[in-house]
């Protein structure tokens, strides 16, 4: 029981303080993992590896994995629920405020600054992904094929599957 309470408390805290999303919460996670001894050093890095290889937010991956070790399926459900609880509540509050104030002139002005900044955020993520993606000539070929497929209107998910298939064939 105490183990589950610790689990819930730790993941509530991780969710509430992981600004910047994704890998920004790794230091917070390490702190809690070391405090309770949930994972060995090797396991910790294994999960980071698995997170890169599987879809979905890193936070959810860690919560599910550690939760499973501590309390099986329900441990997973508890930790995952806790890690997203605070963010979801905050987003709902923001959403409610925003729909009430959307047409207020000063909110509009702020959004005029935020929209270009958001594009910059996506662009900087793009550069980060590019650094890990283009390591050899083969990756340029895959990118070229993916570009042509996207241009022709292929569904993004199918494009990813084509990329994965090419990866298995070429590497």
């Amino acid at each position, binding site marked *: 029981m105490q183990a589950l309470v610790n689990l819930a408390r730790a993941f509530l805290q991780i969710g509430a303080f992981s600004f910047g999303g994704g890998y920004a919460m790794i230091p917070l996670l390490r702190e809690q993992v070391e405090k309770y001894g949930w994972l060995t050093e090797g396991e910790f890095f294994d999960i980071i590896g698995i997170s890169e290889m599987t879809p979905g937010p*890193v936070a959810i991956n860690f919560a599910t994995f550690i939760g499973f070790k501590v309390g099986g399926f329900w441990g997973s459900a508890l930790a995952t629920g806790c890690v*997203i609880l605070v963010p979801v509540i905050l987003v709902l509050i923001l959403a409610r405020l925003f729909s009430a104030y959307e047409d207020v002139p000063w909110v509009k002005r702020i959004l005029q600054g935020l929209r270009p900044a958001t594009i910059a955020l996506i662009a900087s993520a*793009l550069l980060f992904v590019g650094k890990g993606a283009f390591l050899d000539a083969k990756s340029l070929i895959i990118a070229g094929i993916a570009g042509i497929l996207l241009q022709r209107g292929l569904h993004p998910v199918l494009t990813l599957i084509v990329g994965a298939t090419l990866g298995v064939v070429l590497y």
Partner: protein
Amino acid sequence: MLGKLFLIFLQIGAFTFGGGYAMVPLIQREVCTKQGWLTDQDFLNCLALAQSAPGPLAINTAAYIGYRLRGTAGALVAVLGAALPSFAIIIVVASFFNRFATLAPVQAAFRGMRPAIFMLMAYAVASLGKKTLHDKFSIIVAMMSLGLLLLGLPTFVVLILAGTIGYVRGGKRDASSS
């Protein structure tokens, strides 16, 4: 619509490899282009606000878009959809094969997927950029923000700065036009 919302975010959750921003093209296509539920401007507003809160971007965006379309129920359905695939996959990984990530074919598949992810995101940046960066002001703000992000400034600091600039500049324009 709730069912469709769930399925769309389930799909998004299942295919967001490479971090939160990799799902931007997927959401844009499903929610803006195909369903026409949001305009690109609305979508960018959603992203800007979703990343002002702590937590995973995919979850926050799901919550925000779900709320915008169908209130609290919409938010819950979208979050559930976005979280479920990785939850299920990790349960399987945790119970059966710990060493899944080190299998050679799995690694090859992901190496192949990365350039495809890059192209997807590049398309999203280009299409959103074309619609939003149509005056000197927004281009300058975008360039400045990108520069600061590359220098390693935290996301929320850059967002606060950009919001402040938008506010100040709008205020000046109001004053000069009246």
